[in-house]
Each structure stands twice: as structure tokens, then as C-alpha cells.
């Protein structure tokens, strides 16, 4: 591991000032915030992350989870994934989120991993993690061996000629369907970014993964309050029954009225370069009576533009079935 200075931020303002000293908040940042460390320390050992300064943000008191006066759920940036998954408000009103978190990683990792850290976790693409390989995300311009290589686990949506790395998060997929908003304290003040707009597609610059700028500190995430009678679930399909990343996953939420779909939201994991939600596909469900055909039609819209690689073409049909099955679970 490359040497670094380790400092503990006494307050948010100092953390922001520390972070602002980096030339980027993306790949290659010279200053990194340390929360749970489950991604950062791992990647620092591999040499993928090489910050010269690590700023511990664990004592900033950013770990609260509560219902705000406006009904939204407040989730602190350093709330542990385990605490979030088991929180009574989450288990009660945001089932898909609780299930998604518990379907990811292991208890040990969830006890350390945090809200913001999970949102910012990096791809598990093996070429990204291996310094002996080219990788446009890790070393821009070096090439992408995954496109003609081992890509069974990689993305079919949001890809580019430069990168097909999958976003590995389960939590972020579920947060998408609850209209999550990411709250950021930055050099120029506070701002809020809907999670739908937080991640950027790889395009020519897969090293840039989100909208964060140097100094930006994610302070918390808010989720909108669920509609009355809404049901939601998270279905994750994977090679092992536990402790494995998704081949395909779906977070789905629905409300029914008089036998018809009154509202529906869904997002997919395991198949996109970011968590994948297409609102047009959701609108196609409204007013319809729940049926395999209706759900499959929405799946087709959501998967429009899917581009399979050599080994992951199976994900298209798997994704269709995942969406249909998840919706059936909460409508039958």
C-alpha cells in the first residue's frame, strides 16, 4: 500500500476543506474520505486507489436514521448498512431496501459498510482490480480487455466502447425506486442531487462515475415517504444463494386500486453501468391489470438498447423474468 497521512476530521467543514485539496473526486483522487473502509482499504491494498491523504469521517455524527417532519426518511452518510437494513422504519415502509441490503455482502461487511460508501462502491470487474491489466476506468486510455474477455458478470446497459463495468450495489438499486436524493456539502455550499442523476454513464471517461467534485461530502440520503398501500420487494438472482453479486436484480414497488396498477416503480441491478431505472417503462404499467404480459412489456421497455457481450447475453432474458417474477410476488 502506498504511504498516506491519516487524519480524523473534527467537523464537516474541515472534511470538505481537506477533500477540496484533491484535483478530482473520481478515480485517482489524492484525498479520500474513510468511512467503513470496505471498498477503499481493499482497493488501496490492490493499488487501485492511491490517496496520499485519508480523512476519517466516522466521528462526524453522520450516522442517524429518522423520519423527517415532511415524512421523508433521513439516512445519514455513515449509518451502517446493517443498521439501515434492520431499522424498524425501513423494514416497515421500505421493504425492498431492507431486502436489498441484506442480500448483499456478509454481516461483517454490512456492519462496517456505510450509506455513502455503498453508493460510491466500485465495480467488481476483475480487470479494474488487477493492475497488470489495461482498464479505462482505472487508467484512462489504456483499453478495455473485458469487452473481448471475461465479461459474464458485466453490464449490458449503459455501456460504451470504453467500459462495460457493472455497478455492483444492491442498496442503490432499491434506493432508486424510493426516489432517493443525495445531500452533499461542498466547497460552494449544500446541494441535493436525485439519485437518478447522481451516477454518470461511462462514455469516453469511465473513470468519472458520478457528479461529485473535490471536497464534496455526502452528508445524508433522503427517501420519499411511500404511498399508502404500496408494496415493494427486491429479487436478486445470482450464482450462489448468499454472499454473491447479482447477475440480475430487481427492486419493484407497486400500488393497486380496483384491480389495476395505480403506480409502479422498478429498477435493475447487476446489468447496468449504473443502477438502471426507466420511468417510461413504469408509466406503461399504470392503469393496467397486473399480468405476466403487462410486466413483460414493461421489462422490454426497460431493457431497450441492451447490448450483450460475448458471455452475458443470457442476462437479457434473465432480467425480463426477474422483473416479471418480482412484480408477481407482490401482486398475487
Amino acid at each position, binding site marked *: 500500500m502506498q504511504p*498516506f*497521512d*491519516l487524519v480524523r*476530521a473534527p467537523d464537516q467543514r474541515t472534511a470538505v476543506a481537506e477533500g477540496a485539496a484533491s484535483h478530482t473526486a473520481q478515480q485517482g483522487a489524492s484525498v479520500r474520505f474513510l468511512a467503513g473502509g470496505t471498498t477503499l482499504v481493499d482497493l488501496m491494498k490492490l493499488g487501485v486507489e492511491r490517496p496520499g491523504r485519508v480523512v476519517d469521517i466516522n466521528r462526524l455524527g453522520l450516522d442517524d436514521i429518522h423520519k423527517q417532519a415532511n415524512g421523508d426518511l433521513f439516512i445519514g452518510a455513515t449509518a451502517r448498512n446493517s443498521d439501515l437494513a434492520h431499522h424498524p422504519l425501513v423494514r416497515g415502509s421500505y421493504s425492498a431496501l431492507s431486502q436489498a441490503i441484506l442480500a448483499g455482502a*456478509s*454481516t*461483517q*461487511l454490512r*456492519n462496517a459498510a456505510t450509506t455513502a460508501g455503498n453508493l460510491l462502491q466500485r465495480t467488481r470487474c476483475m480487470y479494474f482490480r488487477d493492475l497488470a491489466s489495461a482498464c479505462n476506468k482505472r487508467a484512462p486510455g489504456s483499453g478495455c480487455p473485458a469487452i473481448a474477455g471475461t465479461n459474464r458478470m458485466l453490464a449490458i446497459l449503459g455501456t460504451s466502447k470504453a467500459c462495460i463495468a457493472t455497478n455492483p450495489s444492491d442498496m442503490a438499486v432499491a434506493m432508486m425506486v424510493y426516489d432517493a436524493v443525495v445531500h452533499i456539502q461542498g466547497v460552494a455550499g449544500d446541494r441535493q442531487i436525485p439519485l437518478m442523476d447522481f451516477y454518470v454513464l461511462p462514455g469516453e471517461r469511465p473513470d468519472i462515475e458520478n457528479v461529485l467534485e473535490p471536497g464534496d461530502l455526502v452528508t445524508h440520503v433522503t427517501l420519499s415517504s411511500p404511498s399508502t398501500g404500496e408494496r415493494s420487494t427486491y429479487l436478486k438472482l445470482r450464482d450462489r444463494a448468499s454472499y454473491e453479486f447479482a447477475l440480475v436484480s430487481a427492486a419493484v414497488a407497486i400500488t393497486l386500486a380496483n384491480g389495476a396498477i395505480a403506480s409502479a416503480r422498478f429498477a435493475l441491478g447487476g446489468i447496468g453501468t449504473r443502477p438502471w431505472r426507466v420511468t417510461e417503462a413504469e408509466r406503461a404499467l399504470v392503469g393496467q391489470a397486473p399480468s405476466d404480459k403487462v410486466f413483460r412489456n414493461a421489462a422490454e421497455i426497460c431493457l431497450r438498447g441492451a447490448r450483450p457481450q460475448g458471455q452475458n447475453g443470457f442476462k437479457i432474458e434473465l432480467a425480463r423474468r426477474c422483473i416479471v417474477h418480482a412484480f408477481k410476488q407482490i401482486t398475487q
Partner: protein
Amino acid sequence: MTDLGENIVATDDPGYGRLTVTLKVNGQEREVLIDPRMTLLDCLREVLRLIGTKKGCDHGQCGACTIHINGRRVNSCLALAAAHVGDEIVTIEGLGVPGRLHPMQAAFLENDAYQCGYCTSGQIMSAVALLREPCGMSDDDVREFMSGNICRCGAYPNIVKAIQRARRALRGS
């Protein structure tokens, strides 16, 4: 920028960036001089000579390094030691000793819940934490909650058996 707090002071040796920190391990305050890069796992094993905690994958994938921080199980290989000043750290050595074993340690012995033994301390640290977690009573629930601890020898059936027997015994007592 501040230093790391009262207990953490950077030395004036520019070549190492070493830190003197005080860690609370198994109820005892221990002062250590360490590089900021040192993981809690390496600090426990190489500096404090508490070698019951094992290094398997060193990337948070196998669970051999599982310890408790503030009562919760984590992978010590992904924790920077210097970031855990003020935390309550418990290792397998703090759980029980020969002649005065923790009931979970005793259950692993009685149920032959290991073969080579390398993953065992991590398994036991997870199993003890599981007692305080919202884990259902079925064997499948235990398997799911223990999925972060890999056993290369495949001792899983007896690990589940040991945990279930310890849970029943502790519930009955």
C-alpha cells in the same frame, strides 16, 4: 487540520509517518507505534501478538479475520488500526481461555465443528455475534448469517450444529 485526536500523535520521523495510538483490546489499553497503513488485523497479530485472529484472503472475502468492534463483528483486514482509537475491540483471546471457554467455543469443540482449524476463530467470533443479531431459528437462517465465513475444509454441517446447540443451551440457561 487537526491531528487524529488526543490519543493519536504523529511522530516527527518523516520517513515513516508512524503514529502512536492507544487501542483498547480485550479490555486492556495497549499503546502501539504503527504505520497508518497497518490494518487492525496486522496490528493484532504482528504488534500485539494476538495470533488467534487469522489472515485468510486479506480482502474481506473469507471471514477468517473476524473480530468484534463495539460489540459487532467486522473483518479486521479492512479496518485501519489507527482509525479505531476509542473503540472496544474483542478478539478470540478475549472470549474465553482453556478451562473457561465461552459456550460457543465449547460447542465447537463438542460438535467437532472444524477440521484444520484455520477459519475457526473467525467462525466462532461470527457465531458469538450472531447470538445478538436478529437471526431466525432455522438451520437455513444460521447458514445465511454465517455466509461471510468460508471454511475450505467444508466443516459447515457441524458448524451449524454447534451454533444451534449453543443457542439452545444459552436460551435455556
